[in-house]
């Protein structure tokens, strides 16, 4: 540990020590670069495995099978095959024993590990060229379809889950009435309702939305109710001594008090909705990104599979970052970001009748 005087005098003896301080907040610059590193590290590892031949590359892509007339245990090796390295070596032993032309090939990774440039190309072509088979969905159509299912599933879930959770967190009566059963259902994996939902709601989007609903709703009730319960009881007492009645307590203290926490909960839960999406879209008539992935996997177009997976990640990250960004302005009392409030105040002040009140 460096002494305080050392730090104050600007002696930078232990940069690593400062980065790895116990519960020591990072500087703004360090935060940025470590955040970049968070994505750069996995990406660089991927590049290394893909492009540096001696790291992995356990297979050989045969470019020339050599003399295919030579019989042997490994005579099935043909041009264009992806075979294990030892098979390739054994075949060449057979060929060299017969003094025939040797097979040739390049070392490659298995088909399921695509290089970054291949995935990038796949993403580009998926958006720019029509699907291989007429009638198949474009990638962006699949993406939109998925977003639609998520949106409705999550909206319905929040529409019922948030009020019910707030009710449970506010009135112990309702908590006792609903929470035991909700707790019971929450342990049932949402996909087990798939067959039922298809029978009830058909093959289109409805059963998929229902699965997302089931997957998030029951968790949401419990999480929301806990967040609501966490509102400081002394605020309720203060409001009561200021004359608030029961419903005013709920509406003017419990709800605004829980709001920032509820917003955080929704950010987490929307991530859960994406995890249920993949199962939901494969029931009934397959649709969305999951159908795209499923189909591309059957064609063994793993570059496309990766492209779709990466897109799910990117969309999720964007939604989360957007929500985090909005939170800074939605809850200025927590973040000190009063820009939005100041703007609204200025607009109100611009109206003549309000100008009288403010002096």
């Amino acid at each position, binding site marked *: 540990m460096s002494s305080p005087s050392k730090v104050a005098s600007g002696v930078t003896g232990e940069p690593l020590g400062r980065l790895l301080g116990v519960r020591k907040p990072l500087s703004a610059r360090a935060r940025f670069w470590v955040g970049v590193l968070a994505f750069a590290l996995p990406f660089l590892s991927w590049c290394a495995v893909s492009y540096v031949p001696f790291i992995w590359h356990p297979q050989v892509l045969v470019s020339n099978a050599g003399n295919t007339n030579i019989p042997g245990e490994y005579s099935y090796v043909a041009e264009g095959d992806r075979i294990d390295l030892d098979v390739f070596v054994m075949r060449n032993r057979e060929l060299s024993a017969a003094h025939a032309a040797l097979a040739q090939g390049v070392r490659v990774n298995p088909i399921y590990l695509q290089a970054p440039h291949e995935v990038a190309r796949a993403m580009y072509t998926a958006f720019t060229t029509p699907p291989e088979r007429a009638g198949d969905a474009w990638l962006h159509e699949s993406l939109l379809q998925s977003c639609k299912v998520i949106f409705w599933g999550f909206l319905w879930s929040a529409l019922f889950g948030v009020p019910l959770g707030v009710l449970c967190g506010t009135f112990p009566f309702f908590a006792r009435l609903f929470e035991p059963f909700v707790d019971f259902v929450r342990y049932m994996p949402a996909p087990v309702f798939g067959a039922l939902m298809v029978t009830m709601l058909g093959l289109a989007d409805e059963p998929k939305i229902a699965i997302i609903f089931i997957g998030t709703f029951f968790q949401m009730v419990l999480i929301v109710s806990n967040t609501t319960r966490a509102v400081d009881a002394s605020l309720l*007492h*203060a409001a009561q*001594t200021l*004359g*608030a009645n029961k419903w005013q307590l709920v509406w003017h203290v419990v709800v605004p008090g829980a709001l920032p926490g509820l917003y955080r909960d929704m950010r987490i839960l929307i991530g859960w909705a994406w995890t249920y999406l993949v199962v939901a879209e494969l029931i009934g008539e397959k649709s969305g990104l999951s159908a795209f992935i499923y189909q591309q996997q059957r064609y063994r177009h793993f570059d496309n599979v990766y492209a779709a997976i990466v897109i799910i990640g990117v969309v999720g990250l964007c939604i989360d970052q957007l929500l985090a960004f909005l939170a800074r302005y939605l*809850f200025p*009392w927590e973040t000190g970001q009063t820009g939005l409030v100041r703007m609204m105040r200025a607009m109100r002040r611009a109206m003549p009748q309000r100008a009288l*009140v403010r002096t």
Partner: protein
Amino acid sequence: MSDDSIKLPSYLDHPPEVAAYFAEVEKRKVVLSIEHLGREFEGAGAPLVALSDVNFKVRQREFISVIGPSGCGKSTLIRIVAGLEEPSSGIVAVDGVPVTGPGADRGMVFQNYTLFPWLTVRKNVLFGPKMKGLRDDKATQAADEWLKLVGLSDFSELYPSQLSGGMKQRVAIARALANDPRILLMDEPFGALDAQTRASMQTHLLRIWHAADVTVLFITHDLEEAIYLSDRIVVLGARPGRILEIIDVPVPRPRSLEQFLSGHFLATKKRLEELIHRCDSPLDEASELEHVG
């Protein structure tokens, strides 16, 4: 005190102006009356008696402090008056009407500020009037008056998280007073503040009390604070919490910091110390532990 200490007057000797003051107070209307108040908690085995047979009255514009060692039930007392807890026996009445629950007639200032973090300072002060359904413009004007009185006019658009502890507590006082309560209940309101802020807040509170027509019931464990602020001091003893004595403070008003060294002030302080230390047995460490919240 040793024998060669300065000769103090008796705390029961009232200077003429103080005697006249109390005679005048006696004529005023009773705002709060507490009769045979008792409170027991279900403990392991025998019930724990927090308050036993507490009786006193608070008259219009009086400033009453309740003081006592920790575990004497002073917080329980004020919470029962506020209606946040129910008594096991006895009656609390405001203007003769028994208290059945919390209400706007008894404004309260808590030790831990309890400002609504999502509301600006002005909107916090406006909370009570808004609950009553008062019109915005008029209530806003009144709220701004209160903020001016507590010296926070320039901070009305800030959020509580942007204020210091002393400022927060001034907002809490303004918020309680803006609701026009019959009595202002203060539960160790300056307990969380540092010594200097605390001293200035005490002076500030006296100014507000002079400026506004308000009756105050003030809980504290600080002897000097109680003497400096109050007309009368209710001294509670611990286990069971009961009234040991109600002291009419012989220090003339207006109060000032110089009076801290006056004979009447010191005599009262000495008496309070005697009363408090009498129930300060070594066993009281246990009661410190029990005293939660």
